[in-house]
């Protein structure tokens, strides 16, 4: 059962990813990305990481896809269908495939002893996040704040500058 779900979700993850990198239409690419990200949330559920699955659907499926679609709409020009891939795309495909094969071979080669997948209670996750990882957590919130202010300043139109 677990294998069945894994194969279905892996198929949607990889098919969505391939769709993102081969489709001509940018809006279709964003929707393929959504398929891939939701399938990844399903993979997190197989791994019993329920909290991460929720975060994945909320942040990636909700926020990031919407921001990407907004960017596509706001920069929409007649040129989009004509922005083709690089002329070196076969070289890029070979290089990417080589990286994938090397990584996959390295993973197949290792023999880490593993347990069957199990899950933390939400309370344990929160405890760890706010005790052991408290400082990185605060730094992450600072990073988000700086990125937010920076994005506003960069994207603002020049007319209202003093």
């Amino acid at each position, binding site marked *: 059962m677990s294998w069945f779900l894994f194969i279905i979700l892996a198929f949607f993850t990889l098919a969505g990813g391939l769709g*993102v*990198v081969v489709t001509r239409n940018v809006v279709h690419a964003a929707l393929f990305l959504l398929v891939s990200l939701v399938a990844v949330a399903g993979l997190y559920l197989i*791994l019993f990481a329920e909290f*991460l699955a929720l*975060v994945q659907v909320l942040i990636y499926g909700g926020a990031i896809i919407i921001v990407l679609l907004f960017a596509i709409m*706001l920069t929409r020009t007649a040129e989009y269908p004509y922005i083709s*891939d690089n002329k*070196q795309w076969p070289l890029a495909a070979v290089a990417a495939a080589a990286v994938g094969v090397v990584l996959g071979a390295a993973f197949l080669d290792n023999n*880490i002893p593993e347990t069957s997948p*199990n899950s933390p209670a939400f309370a344990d996750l929160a405890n760890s996040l706010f005790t052991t990882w408290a400082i990185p957590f605060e730094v992450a919130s600072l990073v988000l704040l700086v990125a937010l202010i920076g994005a506003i300043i960069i994207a603002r139109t020049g007319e209202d500058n003093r």
Partner: protein
Amino acid sequence: MVPLVAFQVLSAALFAIGLYGVMARRSAVLIVMSIELMLNAVNINLIAAASHLDGMGKWANFDGQIIAIFVITVAAAEVGLGMAIILRMYRNRSTVNVDEINLMKW
């Protein structure tokens, strides 16, 4: 039961797809999407390791899941900033084709 290595091979494949997208695409928005694919591949790897290796040596307490939360945070910040830069680039140069954004190219 799906072994750890299946998730790792899947994440390697997804990473390679994203890498191809970053190298072959010319639209800046599509490059950002490919970077998201690569970050997701890393997250699959982290979370698979966190739930298969819990309590073994130094891989305790599901630290992988917490690092994945940080990766998602940074990805969100990256998309926000990246889109702002792309909008500004589009307003100044009327294009999002990265081959034509060559002002700083030597």
